[in-house]
């Protein structure tokens, strides 16, 4: 994103309060400064010499969640998360970012992930359909990948796995490391090209957002238009509605709720598909969280888990409290990062957490053999 775009967005947002009602970090911290307008005002004030980048202001800058609520609810689509990422890049260049940013950056540079000390896997052949694995599915909740593959294979789809253990680039971009993000992006796109795939499936809205929107907007890297990008939940829901797959009703009797994952708000129109899938497997009327669908709050699975783990924790706990109040006993979602965060604290709220793909794989009973 050009510095001019950053400046105009920051100037627009610094005195605008119109997305505060969906702001997640302000909701859990109650601090005006840690709100969309607060971040914009701090950046604008540094520009005007009223503040300077120091431990206090940099800490504020790195308290933004970068999950997209502010932009998703802005009538004029102000790209504030992008502006904050660009401001962070400036701070990184000035060597003023929190130490953890450089540490995570080093891990991404060496291992393509901060979650393991292993190099990414290589592309496994060629095919019409690819599946981006990423690092969260590989290392944080591998069962979602195993289950997704099981379902796809029963649909006679054997996707080429790409990005195995490689971060999609969102984390680097969010931390203010755009060059590193672009490196990761190019590596993934090179694998996609190598696979020859015409369709790429992704396991989460975070991946979908990163490839479809973050790459062109923040990194200047276009998604190859010849390749259709599809979220797996959307893909499976369409096949269910087309009669190609059916699921058995599970005998799990718990009151359940679908938890819209982090970044869900960035992909309009994706909210119905996972709910339809879940409703076909679990009996009874689903509960709904207060912070759901277009206004879903994230858990602490964004870059905040590194820069402000205390705020990340608050976000996760707030979602669990939201779920508890809904009356749900079982929480289901599809994103590996969200699953990991929820599961770490769910017991304290008398809640259980399950992966959507695992539930679907366990209860898949009927597939139409495609010709």
């Amino acid at each position, binding site marked *: 994103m050009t510095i001019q775009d950053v400046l105009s967005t920051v100037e627009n947002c610094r005195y605008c309060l119109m997305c505060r009602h969906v702001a997640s970090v302000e909701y859990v911290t109650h*601090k005006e400064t840690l709100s969309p307008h607060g971040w914009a005002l701090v950046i604008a004030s540094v520009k005007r010499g009223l503040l300077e980048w120091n431990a206090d202001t940099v800490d504020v800058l790195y308290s933004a969640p970068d999950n997209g609520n502010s932009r998703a609810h802005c009538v004029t689509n102000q790209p504030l998360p992008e502006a904050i990422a660009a401001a962070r890049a400036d701070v990184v260049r000035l060597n003023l970012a929190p130490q953890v940013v450089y540490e995570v950056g080093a891990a991404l540079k060496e291992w393509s992930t901060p979650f393991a000390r292993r190099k990414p896997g290589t592309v496994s052949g060629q095919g019409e359909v690819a599946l981006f694995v990423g690092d969260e599915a590989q290392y944080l909740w591998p069962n979602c990948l195993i289950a997704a593959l099981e379902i796809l294979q029963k649909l006679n789809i054997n996707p080429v796995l790409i990005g195995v253990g490689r971060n999609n680039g969102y984390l680097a971009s969010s931390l203010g490391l755009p060059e590193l993000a672009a490196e990761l992006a190019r590596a993934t796109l090179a694998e996609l090209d190598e696979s020859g795939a015409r369709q790429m499936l992704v396991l989460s809205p975070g991946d979908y957002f990163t490839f479809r929107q973050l790459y062109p907007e923040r990194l200047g890297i276009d998604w190859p238009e010849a390749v259709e990008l599809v979220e797996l939940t959307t893909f499976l829901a369409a096949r269910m509605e087309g009669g190609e797959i059916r699921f058995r009703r599970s005998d799990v009797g718990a009151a359940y709720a679908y938890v819209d994952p982090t970044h869900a708000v960035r992909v309009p129109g994706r909210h119905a598909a996972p709910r339809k899938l879940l409703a076909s497997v679990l009996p009874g009327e689903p509960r709904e969280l207060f912070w759901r669908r277009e206004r879903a709050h994230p858990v602490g699975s964004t870059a905040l888990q590194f820069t402000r783990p205390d705020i990340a924790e608050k976000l996760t706990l707030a979602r669990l409290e939201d779920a508890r109040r809904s009356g749900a006993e079982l929480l289901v979602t599809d994103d590996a990062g969200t699953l990991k965060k929820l599961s770490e604290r769910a017991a304290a709220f008398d809640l259980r957490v399950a992966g959507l793909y695992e539930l679907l794989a366990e209860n898949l009973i009927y597939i139409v053999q495609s010709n």
Partner: protein
Amino acid sequence: MVNDQFLMEMIRSELAEIVGQDYVSVAESDKLVYSTDWAWMPQMWLDRGERLRTPDFIVHPGSAEEISEILEVANKYRIPVVPWGGGSGTQGGALPIFGGILLDTKRMNKILAIDEKSLTVTAQAGVILSQLEWAVNEKGLTFPHYAASSNCATLGGALAPRGTGTISTKYGKAEDMVLSMQVVLPTGEIIRTPPVPQHASGPDWFRLFLGAEGTFGVITEATMRLDYLPEARLLRAVLFDDLSAALEAGRLMMTRRLEPFVIRLYDHNSTASQVKKILGYEFHGAYMVIGFDGDPEIAALQEKKALEICRSLGAQDLGREPGEKWWDHRYDFYYPPQNLKLPWMYGTTETVTTYDKIEGLYWAEKKAVEEGFADVGVQFIGHFSHWFHWGVMLYSRFIIENPPQDAREALRLHNRVWNAAMQAVIANGGMINEHHGVGLKLSRYMRRQFGTAWPLLLKIKKTIDPNGIMNPGKTGFGF
């Protein structure tokens, strides 16, 4: 206000012991962000690279009891206290102009009870209005205070300046919806107002806190009236050649008790500029949106009668689409870059008066502003948005696209324009404000507005707040 670093640390420790370490801040970034609200004056000041007075402490209390203890500290050390809700006030009412303790109430954001029989909701004052609305929507109810600031303002912030929402014409102002409140007085007592607002059990003292903008204490909780979500909402737009005829149409709709939930009448300039910019319509005249809601048959009949009135006064019926589009985009006016924003100078010199005076007041204010400041290219636009049985509110605005770059010069010009507008308003029987409040900006007009009754208000203030710590400099009250 607290100049001594030693005393500063002593007070900071005391505050931290009340609310917890995490909820007291003296960080420079916090001080800057909390030094401005949504008023043009402080925003311009920062925009020009000037520094504003900042609070000494930003505190986030979690209960009325904590606020009571904080006020005890403030009284002991004679430190000003500024209550802060959403910071979305346009009058400078939440500016910490003397430093002191800024009380951000947003930690107190719980919805305590929804009574589906009495149709009430009880909530803490720090809840954001949109979040409150979502919560009651889940029970098929609505809190019919649809302010343009609902996404950012708090419940306390709606009550403190006597706010008004888009559908106030039928449902009333925020002050009309409050049954009871919990308030922490400046001297620390936590009181509850009577459980219902209409009774014959003595003077109506609970309304003292409505419009006091924090100068009489801190509203911490309120029980508010709800309504059922309407079965139907019918909207349409009409166009008048003549503003006078349009005002008469609105008056007749109200006095004949047709109960529109909205009448939004734009003057010719607003129609040509704002309506065109946001909605894309190029109309020449006075554009009016009317809306009726509730039972579909009743609403349809009310709308039919209203249309008859409008046509009889020369209006052209524009149909449903422009009205519905206005409703769907009614808050788009506030999003950047299509909102009024810096570096322009602007102000909302809104007022309210009775029907016999409103037209004269409109032209007088328009003349005072347009003629008085023609040399700086001022634009005057207005719409009439909140209607009563006895009168209507004029939402007048001035815009200067090329104000002085120097902050001091700009502020002086701003204040001169405001003065011209307010003098015209008072001279023509209007009130200095209808729903944004007085704050700092209009504080200097309170004596003129209330005349011989003003000393009474000063006595009340002195009694309630003997040390003058609550939001000094606002609503006409000093220390």
